[in-house]
């Protein structure tokens, strides 16, 4: 079943086209990453999914419920962690979570609230006023608020922005558990290593358009492959290897090249060609491409 169906969503703010016909289908149980630079339209898209912003055109459905026409059922299925660190200063952590739970019709939900607080290390802050919490603790409460009604679809908009390593680990452990239990997770983050570690599939947005949509493994394989970095103290690349060069540099001790390879077997072929041409390798390093390389390539080119 499709957890989130986004169909031709458009949103314009005066002269700025924030989203220009975005379509995505996120399947139930996926851990999906929504990536892009600032201003790409990620938060606008999430706000439309959450019903906080109304699209100019197109539609969004959560588990088949349109977020505008059938907003009550759509919102029951959705838990959103907003990007902004917002809180209500009148209430304690437990009161905040009980109220949020109550809004969703769950009046006696203390067992689950206690479990969420335990999993996010909030138990000893349960009766502390929100004003007295650190930024990291407030962020944990935001996550807990999104989870109090056990939504099958969880959307996290930059959940680890500006928080310490401990919270990240706590958060990802809990979110991974929920994902294993069948919850669909949609994540936006600026920490690409997090997206690479957590997400099975990603969409990249640029200027309100989807410029890449693929599984993480396929994206890494398809776009970049690996890099073989060689530093030559003597000699140079042969002409037949020059088309593999991605980053030519001149180092203090000779010529330094990054060569793109698709399979490890190509390493031996390259080394053989260099040896037979008389080149001397001073230093060599094999580097696996990561999401950051892919992200930069896509954002440079604008498409895959």
């Amino acid at each position, binding site marked *: 079943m499709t957890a989130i169906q986004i169909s031709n969503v458009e949103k314009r703010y005066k002269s700025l086209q924030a989203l220009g016909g975005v379509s995505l289908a996120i399947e139930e149980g996926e851990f999906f990453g929504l990536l892009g630079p600032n201003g790409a339209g990620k938060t606008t898209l999430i706000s439309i999914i959450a019903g906080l912003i109304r699209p100019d055109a197109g539609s969004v459905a959560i588990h088949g419920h349109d977020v505008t026409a059938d907003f009550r059922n759509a919102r029951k299925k*959705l838990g959103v962690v907003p990007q902004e660190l917002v809180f209500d200063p009148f209430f304690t952590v437990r009161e905040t979570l009980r109220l949020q739970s109550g809004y969703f*019709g769950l009046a006696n939900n203390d067992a689950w609230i206690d479990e969420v607080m335990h999993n996010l290390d909030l138990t000893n802050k349960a009766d502390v006023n929100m004003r007295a919490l650190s930024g990291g603790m407030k962020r944990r409460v935001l996550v807990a608020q999104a989870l109090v009604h056990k939504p099958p679809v969880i959307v996290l908009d930059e959940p680890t922005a500006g928080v310490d390593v401990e919270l990240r680990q706590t958060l990802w452990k809990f979110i991974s558990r929920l994902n294993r239990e069948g919850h669909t997770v949609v994540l936006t983050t600026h920490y690409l290593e997090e997206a690479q570690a957590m997400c099975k599939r990603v969409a990249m947005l640029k200027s309100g358009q989807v410029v890449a949509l693929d599984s993480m493994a396929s994206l890494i394989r398809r776009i970049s492959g690996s890099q073989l970095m060689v530093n030559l103290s003597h000699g140079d690349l042969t002409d037949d290897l020059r088309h593999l060069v991605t980053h030519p540099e001149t180092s203090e001790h000779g010529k330094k090249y990054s060569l793109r390879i698709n399979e490890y077997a190509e390493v031996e072929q390259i080394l053989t060609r260099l040896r037979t041409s008389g080149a001397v390798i001073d230093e060599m390093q094999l580097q696996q491409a990561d999401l950051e390389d892919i992200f930069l390539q896509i954002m440079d080119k604008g498409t895959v």
Partner: protein
Amino acid sequence: MNFISAGFRTLVYKESLRFWKVATQTIAAPILTAMLYLLIFGHVLEGRVTVYAGVTYTAFLIPGLVMMSILQNAFANSSSSLIQSKITGNLVFVLLTPLSHWEIFSAYVIAAMARGLAVGLGVFIATTWFAHLSFVWPLWIVVFALLGAAILGTMGLIAGIWAEKFDQLAAFQNFLIMPLTFLSGVFYSIHSLPPFWLTISHLNPFFYMIDGFRYGFFGQSDVNPLVSVAIVSGFLVALSLLAIRLLRSGYRLRH
């Protein structure tokens, strides 16, 4: 549409708990203000102004002050809650929920009524020692107190939706609510006004709330209470329709 859903009850509870947690500011302070009005105006004008035969000025003033407190605090509750939530961003916690427009409207207005009526009751209890009050038509007292609180709770909701900054809300309060309240006959009978202002006062819906409320105490009023209740009810319906329309459209809430 389910007016007694758990979600709706939670929002009423939250909005009520919000003002109860700062009751010194939201309940005790306005009671003190009303008592100061009574002490100053009552002391200065007692014996000099007679509005209704057999009713002292202090006794005349008390229902006006009670109603003024109900109106001002009902407005303050919904408007301040909404603008604070909008500006701090925590309104998102309500906007992300399955609560309907009706539920949000009703919850904010009921909580505003609760605060307005709590302050009004407090003012009544605190001031009733200063004059002998009669209760000729208690039902009218209750009806106009409820209608007045609901109207100002709804106006507060509209102002909170419309305002995007605190100074816009202050302008709404100072240039609309305050003049309408003070020119409604809280401190005087509109029949003591010159003809022009007498006519203008009849265009002020707040006048009918206070006049009808006072009728419940003294059995005397400037306008027939049936006319007042009709005008006030009509005003409430019109404002409610506007507020619900704004909520449904997402005006300045969902962009």
